[in-house]
């Protein structure tokens, strides 16, 4: 069942077309990548899902029902442009934001305590946000996004501005939330950064969805039959029956080959390679999302 369903949503700003008939289905429990270059319309779409703006046409369903104001309690949103009140204490600020997302004061207090312990930041509870380092503020920002235990987490460019240590920390927290049942939408223009965690994606360009589906399926659809093999103790090859040689690279005991398969059977290629030496590794090279995107846009 899809938790979020975007149906033919369009949004125009005067002459600028931000979104044109975009439709998406996000499965419950999925990790979904909303990908596209800067200015593709990702943030416009996210703002519509968060009810910051309304679509000019089309509709958005959350758990099968049209969006209503109280749905903000189900969504945790980390915007690209994010910040906190600089002159407010960390604890008060989290309490305030939690209460605004429909938590009772008592529940909010419990949650603030829990999350501050989980991130080992209890000592900052009475500090003003302006006293925190950037990395510290980012942790608080993340807590503020998830404090009300949202079923749907929308993260817009979540890793920009985070240092590598925080990026890993946040990544592992996000995965934990997913394991606990949350659905996660990543929006980013850095496609490589989400390739390893997303199981579904949608590609957006100039306000239109150009591609969507399971990541593995898409990669499969766009594969170009390129294989990489490593042969032990082999001399350079002249040619092969099953494949064309794209490149080969000889090092001390190893020959690294990049090959394009001519047949539909990769076993034939593997068997042929074994004739020339010990086959240390043999794998298909799948295109990166970047490559797929460029290919798709250029078509």
């Amino acid at each position: 069942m899809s938790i979020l369903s975007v149906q033919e949503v369009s949004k125009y700003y005067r002459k600028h077309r931000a979104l044109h008939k975009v439709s998406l289905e996000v499965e419950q429990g999925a990790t979904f990548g909303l990908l596209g270059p800067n200015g593709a319309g990702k943030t416009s779409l996210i703002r519509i899902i968060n009810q910051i703006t309304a679509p000019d046409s089309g509709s958005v369903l959350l758990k099968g029902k049209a969006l209503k104001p109280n749905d903000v309690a189900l969504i945790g949103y980390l915007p690209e442009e994010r910040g906190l009140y600089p002159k407010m204490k960390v604890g008060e600020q989290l309490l305030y934001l939690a209460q605004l997302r429909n938590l009772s004061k008592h529940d909010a207090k419990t949650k603030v305590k829990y999350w501050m312990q989980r991130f080992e930041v209890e000592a900052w509870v009475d500090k003003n946000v302006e006293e925190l380092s950037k990395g510290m503020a980012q942790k608080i920002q993340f807590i503020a996004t998830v404090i009300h235990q949202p079923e749907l987490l929308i993260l817009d460019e979540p890793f920009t501005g985070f240092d590598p240590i925080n990026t890993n920390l946040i990544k592992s927290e996000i995965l934990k939330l997913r394991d606990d049942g949350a659905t996660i939408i990543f929006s980013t223009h850095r496609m490589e950064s989400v390739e390893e965690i997303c199981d579904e994606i949608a590609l957006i360009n100039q306000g239109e969805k150009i591609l969507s589906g399971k990541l593995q399926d898409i990669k499969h659809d766009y594969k170009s039959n390129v294989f990489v093999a490593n042969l032990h103790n082999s001399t350079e090859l002249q040619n092969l029956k099953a494949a064309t040689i794209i490149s080969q690279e000889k090092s001390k005991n190893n020959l690294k080959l990049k090959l394009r398969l001519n047949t539909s059977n990769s076993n034939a290629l593997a068997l042929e390679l074994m004739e020339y030496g010990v086959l240390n590794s043999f794998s298909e090279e799948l295109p990166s999302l970047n490559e797929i995107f460029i290919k798709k846009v250029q078509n």
Partner: protein
Amino acid sequence: MHKTWLIIKREFSTRVRKKSFIIMTILGPILSAAIFILPAYLATLPEDNRVITVLDEPGMMDLDKGKENLKFRYLPPKEFDLEKAKEFFEKGDDYALLYIPASSNNDPDIMTYGSKLFCKSDISLGVEAYVQGKLDKYIQNEKLKAQGVDPDVLARTKTRVKLSVINLEKGKETESLSAVKMGIGYVSAFLIYFFVFVYGAQVMRGVIEEKTSRIVEVMVSTVKPFQLMAGKIFGLAGVALLQFLVWVVFGIAFYSAALSFILVPKLDAAKLTPTNVSTIDQDIIFRVFETIDAINFPYIIGCFLFFFLFGYLLYAAMFAAIGSAVDKESDTQQFMFPVSMPLVAGLIVLIRALDNPDGPIAFWFSVIPFTSPIVMMARVPFNVPIWELVVSMLTLLATFVGMMWVAGRIYRTGILMYGKKPKFKELLKWITYKS
């Protein structure tokens, strides 16, 4: 509604805990009380005892002894001339030397131009004025004598009229003291002007702060932009009211203190001296307090709170819209001008309105909602016709509601816009945008 309330609470509690608020709230009334109390207190301090050496050659001053802290010491004109007197003065400790020359033909004007006051360092203005006053009086006496008029007769015929102005309106006779009413009108109008500007600017700064700290997108994904704006405006209204209330409490305390320290001793003094020798000064104080008693304070305070609150709310909505449209405070100039124009105009008209509270200028500016909070408050102490008051209030209320709507439309577009500085025309376009 619950969320708006949370926002109001946050705006209120973070601001009233600020040091600047606490200092302003407490220091404000103390400073303004000091302006009144300090001169009065200084006047009661004992002055230095001073003696002025006088060489009165014509014997004009009748050996006048001076006053408590300023005595005259006379040198016998037969033994001293000006040179000797100067020598004597330089050796002694006296404060100054007054020299009045004799005239051979009894022409008093010789004394007028010839009198001199010598001193060792700069002389106090009070002393100079006192001596001059004495000379005026005695030279005038000399002139009267020269004209054959007995100065005693003149003194006996001197009259001073104290005109009592009685206000017959509403069938009851109240002693009218326009000055007191003008004072009340001026102070309350000025307070409104002050609060509107100070707190309106705070609303604007708060909105800009939310934009620059980039919290605003988190906020509007949680609450409606209108709730965020309204929460800020009403939260700050609470802060302004609290500050005003504290000032009122200070004011009442100050007034009662003044009452018991100034009026009560004077009342007692009046009882002790049935011949009623109270001076004009005391009389004015009596009448000021009498008028204050006669003024309908619940009515005036009620009107004040209304115009105070809605005047602030109207302008705060405009300031919020401006704040939403810019990224930093220095970009607000172009918008501040048209918004503060009517406020300043109100302050200018205020003087005219106090002078002529029933005139057409006062009437129109007290109905136009952008100036009415200031100008109407100048008129309220002077019994404004009820229908005019009601029209003014309703217009203000309606304009406020309309302005909140307009500001809300600008705000919701403005807070998510970064980078370019919008023009006034664009702000107007945002009003018609779809959400």
